[in-house]
């Protein structure tokens, strides 16, 4: 394709005009630095990963019937024939053993993560003011929030895997005979709450998310260290805090979606 170069625009045979000043190199076309733009592009790719996982969750859950009192009985109980109601599964809180508190603990976890996002924004804002003390303070709060969330999620997993006191009794056909067996808790093969896919998806998706939170905390600790030892003061800007901030907000955003589709719907 022949190209005609004029002083400030590049025209091709199909008569499209590209603004040479913006797109021919040497400038930032989207007015953000290379590092920040690449972080945004990475976040788009990670969005696709989590969307694929969550849409798969939607597909599998939608392919199972939900509990219906007209068919399965007045009182809800766990069964591998239908998908469980989330507030019957996630109803315990640490240190409050035996008390039925549906979705309370996950609400606390959500609050912790959103709050850590707020402290992250405050750290970025302190970076704009070149206020190192405030950057350190707010990064520490964010790291603390991240660790608390991870610890809480670990407790959720432990409790989920361990199961309830009574467990669920299932009927199985073994060697031509129907036997009763009580399952407690969950693993990747079977669980007491519902179909095997229920636990599989819980572990997979919250595990993926938890890994992202963990890597985010590690990055935050590293950037905290670099800020505290004065690297960004010497550099003249705290843009690295903004970049890890983008990653941290992404982690928070994914949690908002996971929390909605796993626990609320």
């Amino acid at each position, binding site marked *: 394709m022949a190209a005609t170069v004029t002083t400030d625009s590049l025209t091709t045979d199909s008569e499209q005009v590209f603004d040479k000043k913006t797109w021919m190199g040497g400038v930032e*076309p*989207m*007015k*953000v630095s290379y590092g920040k*733009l690449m972080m*945004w592009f990475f976040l*788009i790719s990670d*969005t*696709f990963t989590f*969307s*694929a996982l969550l*849409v*798969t969750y*939607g*597909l*599998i*859950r*939608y*392919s*199972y*019937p*939900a509990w219906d009192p007209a068919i399965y009985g007045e009182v809800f109980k766990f069964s591998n024939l239908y998908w469980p*109601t989330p*507030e019957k599964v996630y109803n315990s809180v640490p240190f409050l053993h035996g008390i039925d508190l*549906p*979705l309370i603990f996950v*609400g606390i976890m*959500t*609050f912790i993560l*959103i*709050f850590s*996002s*707020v402290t*992250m*924004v*405050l750290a970025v*804002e302190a970076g704009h003011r070149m206020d190192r003390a405030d950057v350190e303070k707010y990064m520490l709060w964010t790291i603390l929030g991240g660790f608390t969330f991870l610890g809480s999620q670990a407790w959720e997993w432990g409790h989920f895997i361990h199961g309830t006191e009574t467990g669920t009794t299932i009927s199985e056909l073994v060697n031509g005979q129907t036997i009763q067996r009580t399952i407690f808790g969950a693993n990747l093969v079977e669980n007491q709450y519902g179909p095997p896919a229920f636990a599989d998806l819980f572990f997979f998706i919250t595990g993926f998310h938890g890994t992202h939170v963990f890597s985010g905390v590690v990055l935050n600790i590293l950037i905290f260290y670099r800020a505290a030892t004065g690297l960004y003061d010497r550099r003249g800007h705290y843009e690295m805090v*903004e970049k890890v*901030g*983008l990653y941290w*907000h*992404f982690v*928070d*955003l994914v949690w*908002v*979606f996971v929390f*909605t589709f796993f*626990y*609320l*719907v």
Partner: protein
Amino acid sequence: MIWRTFWILLAITAVEFTLAYFMKAGGLRTSIFVIMTLVKAFYIVGEFMHLKHEVKSLIWAIVIPIVFIIWLLIALITEGGSIFELR
């Protein structure tokens, strides 16, 4: 602005919890949850991640690929429904 966004997010989450406890499970409730979650996403991406204040081309570079996710969602939920029919 930061704290205003935080209170908005907290308020929306509180309403979501209230609906989770007191509204009957079903398509309407799920749709309301999805809309509220999208509003929360708009605030987190727009304000916390500052995207609302960036250059238009960057905003579109992030928003336009989302249509692929919308397509995937519609396609796979339909698949899930047909598997349900086959069970």
